[in-house]
């Protein structure tokens, strides 16, 4: 029996890419600002809907993917920066702990989510179009055949996504801004002393992360659809990808994205064909993978909670 189809492999590639693309800004923003940002989902949704609404309302101008992507980038960046200025910055000034920041991000997530709902319902009434499972109008105008994959939006986002990831790497590891970000993430006090402005680096980080998150939302809308809830149902997988990367390394985060995608697709396919595991176990597999990864080989930064060894292990070794 054929265990894996080509379609499964392509899905793994594509979904792994989108997970990575969504997880990278989450990792970077956590590294630099120490905020485990739940409002990330809202940024993704904002990006998707900016592209969808603009391309539906001004089809002439926004029929170009790149224009829509840039618009989405700025929208996401602005929301992220506003969120930072009005919530995180103020809390950081009061020396709030990371847990408090996380709960604050939860609060802004709830707020932004229903704000998006409201905006969508108003716009939908004004332009008299269904915006719930909407796809950007330019999805139909793309035309590119790549490696025999006939889905043009998939091809586009694969190419664009990979180049974006490369770009992020370059920004993070090869530019002075990236250096400043890494400095702040390693030691904020030291960075401050050596003349790197904490606040401007954070603002720029949110600009970059918000924009990237929004772009990943556009890709998702191109490939699948945009709804106010889609990012919420993705977020746990995206977090899992980050955690496998230890929420520290970009390369490992990308690996994490592909590991989760592989578990959901390739592993699912194998188990399905071998033992007839129900397809409804797909999310089960991604969490199982996460647990196994955490327990068997803890990612960087996750291990070393305590210098403590369990009894049964110790006795086998030393007694």
């Amino acid at each position: 029996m054929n265990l894996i189809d080509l379609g499964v492999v392509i899905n793994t590639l594509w979904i792994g890419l989108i997970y990575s693309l969504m997880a990278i800004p989450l990792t970077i923003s956590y590294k630099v600002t120490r905020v485990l940002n739940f409002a990330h989902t809202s940024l993704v949704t904002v990006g998707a809907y900016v592209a969808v609404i603009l391309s539906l309302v001004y089809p002439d101008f926004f029929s170009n993917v790149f224009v829509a992507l840039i618009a989405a980038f700025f929208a996401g960046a602005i929301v992220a920066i506003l969120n930072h200025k009005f919530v995180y910055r103020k809390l950081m000034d009061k020396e709030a702990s990371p847990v408090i920041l996380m709960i604050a991000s939860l609060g802004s997530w709830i707020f932004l989510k229903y704000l998006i709902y409201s905006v969508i319902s108003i716009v939908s009434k004004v332009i008299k179009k269904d915006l719930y499972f909407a796809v950007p109008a330019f999805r139909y105008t793309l035309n590119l055949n790549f490696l025999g994959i006939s889905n043009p939006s998939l091809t586009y986002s694969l190419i664009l996504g990979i180049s974006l990831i490369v770009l992020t790497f370059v920004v993070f590891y090869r530019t002075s801004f990236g250096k400043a970000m890494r400095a702040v993430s390693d030691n904020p006090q030291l960075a401050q002393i050596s003349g790197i402005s904490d606040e401007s680096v954070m603002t720029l980080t949110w600009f970059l992360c918000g924009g990237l998150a929004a772009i990943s939302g556009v890709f998702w809308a191109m490939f699948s659809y945009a709804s106010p809830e889609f990012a919420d149902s993705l977020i746990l997988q995206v977090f899992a990808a980050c955690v496998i990367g230890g929420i520290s390394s970009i390369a490992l985060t990308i690996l994490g994205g592909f590991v989760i995608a592989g578990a959901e697709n390739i592993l699912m396919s194998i188990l399905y064909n071998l033992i007839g595991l129900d397809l409804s176990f797909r999310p089960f597999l991604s969490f199982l993978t996460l647990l196994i990864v955490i327990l068997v080989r803890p990612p960087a930064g996750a291990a070393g909670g305590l210098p403590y060894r369990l009894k049964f292990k110790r006795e086998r070794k030393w007694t």
Partner: protein
Amino acid sequence: MDVVGFLVSWITLFSIYSILSISLNLEAGYTGISNFGKAAFYGIGAFFAAVISLSAFLMLNGLSYPLYSLETIISMGTLSKQNPILSILIFLFTVVLAFFVSGIAGYMVSYPTLRVGPAFLGITVLSFGELLRIFLRNFQPTGGTYGLAGIPHPFAFIQDPAVKDFMFMLVTLVILAIMYIFSEKFVNSPYGRIMKSIREDEIASLCLGKDVPKIKAQVLFIGSGMAGVAGALLAYYMGSINPDIFVPSLTFEVWAMVILGGLANNKGALLGAGIITFLNRASVILNFTFQNLPIDVNYIRWMIVGLLIVASLLFKPEGLIPEDPKSSFIWNFVEEKEPISLKKRMEETSKKVKFYIKKVFDWFAMGGG
């Protein structure tokens, strides 16, 4: 408006959520275990209570329907009303056992605490919760996605629904009080001191001879057990449960309650639970007042909830009732006092009261004289 009904239903849910927030406070506030899988243990308790009470009723009446079937739901409607003592007994039995079942699950889940650092514990327990939920969705004996319905209410024999709900509210309040008192006892004892020391610096506590993993596991046992009790209460209150109630967002809601009220303060946990459950409920008033807004009033409701969380954190990042490091029992000793007995405390209080009464009288006497 039915004020009594509002209060009864609010207080019932408030108590259930308070048990959750107190248990999370024990774990996260006092011991520093970032448990993001609260919903899992809540769900274990709920499903345990539902399965046990349904199968007990079916078995005692010699019926053998599947637990989730239509026949079960219909027969429960009459069976639950027949024997008051039996239903109350089964209720108490399952609530107590739910504590232990969920607690043991929590104890076992604590194994990862040895393997991963505190930052990653949260996501580990969260994934455990999701695994459990997806498993339950696919596990037919407990109804799968049908969930379980017809869970016999302990006071089903009472005819008047208002009285029935009131009785249930009383029971949940009593259970909440027990949980509250127990957690206060814990945190004000030397055990609570060690819990706090683990939160502050677990490596230092380990080097000071504390078996940190064991204590963490015990705290997870207590906390998860409490969550299990809350779950059992929810199952009886709603009369039906399904796996999709126990989603991660429920855990986050409880977290918001604890943070809002103030970490490491049981009163804060109560206040946080009270505020959020009250907001969820009372904001429905907006639906009655504002009908034809351009934005749906429901969205505005939830937006207000989000804003309030953010705003309260901005203005009081440490919570509405912040932790009082000097509140613990040990503080009584520092003044080189013997521990105050209840009798003595009452004497002192009555002395104080007399003193103030006397002062007031004096005041008038002076003015008058």
